[in-house]
């Protein structure tokens, strides 16, 4: 057992965990944040994507012990008192969701992109979500949704 200090969705946690646990296991297990999905468990599908210190990562490929003192954002952390995150809202408004299994990871990959580059072009968007597999939507509406979110975030940025 080891002690792990993590900041998850803005809240500090001190956890006693098994040495071998993956970040994904900690998120879904002790933290109970089941919005993060396990798909392939080997870094191919992106369903388990979370944001780790600003970068989208596959939480199935990260050992929890490597995350001491780090900041993690999961899908549960996107909604604020002001409502849904622009990416979440844009996915809803564009009908970019079908079965939903890939959506938490897809939204977080998009969020990580837009936080770094608020005005990406189509290719940058496609590349940013290319590690997230989706079998239902054909990606088209997702790309449109991320463009919509980008526009909303740019408008908000200008207003600030």
């Amino acid at each position: 057992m080891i002690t792990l200090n993590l900041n998850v969705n803005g809240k500090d946690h001190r956890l006693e965990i098994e040495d071998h646990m993956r970040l994904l296991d900690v998120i879904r297990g002790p933290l109970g944040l089941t919005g993060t999905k396990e798909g392939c468990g080997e870094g191919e599908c992106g369903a388990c994507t979370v944001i780790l210190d600003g970068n989208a990562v596959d939480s199935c490929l990260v050992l929890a012990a490597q995350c001491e003192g780090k900041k993690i954002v999961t899908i549960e952390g996107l909604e604020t008192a002001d409502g849904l995150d622009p990416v979440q809202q844009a996915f809803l408004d564009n009908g970019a969701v079908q079965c939903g299994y890939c959506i938490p990871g897809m939204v977080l990959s998009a969020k990580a992109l837009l936080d770094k580059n608020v005005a990406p072009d189509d290719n940058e968007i496609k590349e940013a979500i290319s590690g997230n597999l989706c079998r239902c939507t054909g990606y088209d509406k997702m790309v449109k949704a991320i463009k919509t979110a980008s526009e909303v975030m740019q408008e908000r940025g200008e207003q600030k």
Partner: protein
Amino acid sequence: MLKRGRGIALSWYGTGYGNGFPDYSVATVELAENGEILLRVGATEVGQGSKTIMPQVCAEVLGIHSDQVHMICEDTREFLDSGTAAASRQTYNTGNAVLKASESFKKALLEEARLYLKLNSTAGLEMADQKIWLPIFPSRKTTFAELASHLKSEGRVLAVTDSFTAQTIGMNPETGEGVPYWPYTFNAYGTEVEVDTETGRVQVLQAWCVQDVGRAINPDLVEGQIDGGFVMGLGYALYEDLGVKDGVIKNNKFAKYIIPTAMDIPTIHKYIVEDPENTAPYGAKGIGEPTMVPVAPAILNAIYDAIGIRIFELPATPDVVLKAIVADREAKAKAAVAEGADANG
């Protein structure tokens, strides 16, 4: 060298179980205590949108907003079975059951209103926005909520169940006579591809998907189905190979079984064709599977247009395409040599 080509393919596809197999769907419409509508339907929502469009059908019949219809499809204690979410059948088959149940419920609700308002007949009663009234004597009026609390005071629940069974006739194995499917969905898809003749890599640059849907109950969902079907067809045509050898699946993980990513998708132009089917709920037909059918032939035809070579193997991965290009080049060289020999001889 990069070579571009365009190809089209058309398909028609019978939806439902077909071949005379009893394709049965059932729905129950119930007045909830608060005057809203409960729609109990065993139609599984797997992301295709049945939980969106079934309430739309019910709401259309009852003249209310679809937000006022609560569909229950998650707990099998709460509804009767409407068969699988398969065979592209829920919109047409279960949609018809919902339509019939909603129409029967409307009649039953009007009859309750007649009794409650002490009228001779339901003739001329209007229903909209959760209200029922008699236009020729407008003070005779009530609401869904008022009727619901009246029913509750009498210890009654108004729930109406109705069903739909599709009409198909199994084919006679001797003569081939029959009507194996009804209805059919039609489409015509086109693609533009770029083939790299050095590597055999094929990229789809653009797609045009013209899809008959009978009636688009929810155009956003129809577009989503076209996108999804096209991209699954794209994977089938160019990438996805289980690699079954001696009964064992070789490509048993996403690292080896390659499905399209966002970087593989072309611009997808979508055209919805509405030609209402007269046996369908508001004319709507299923398109779940049909959206995938013409994709591979449209891509293979485009490859042929680009390089003049027919590919007969799926998926048309770079090695398959390159092998075909090399074989074609060698065959042409041989023919040229033979021709030269003929000319000399």
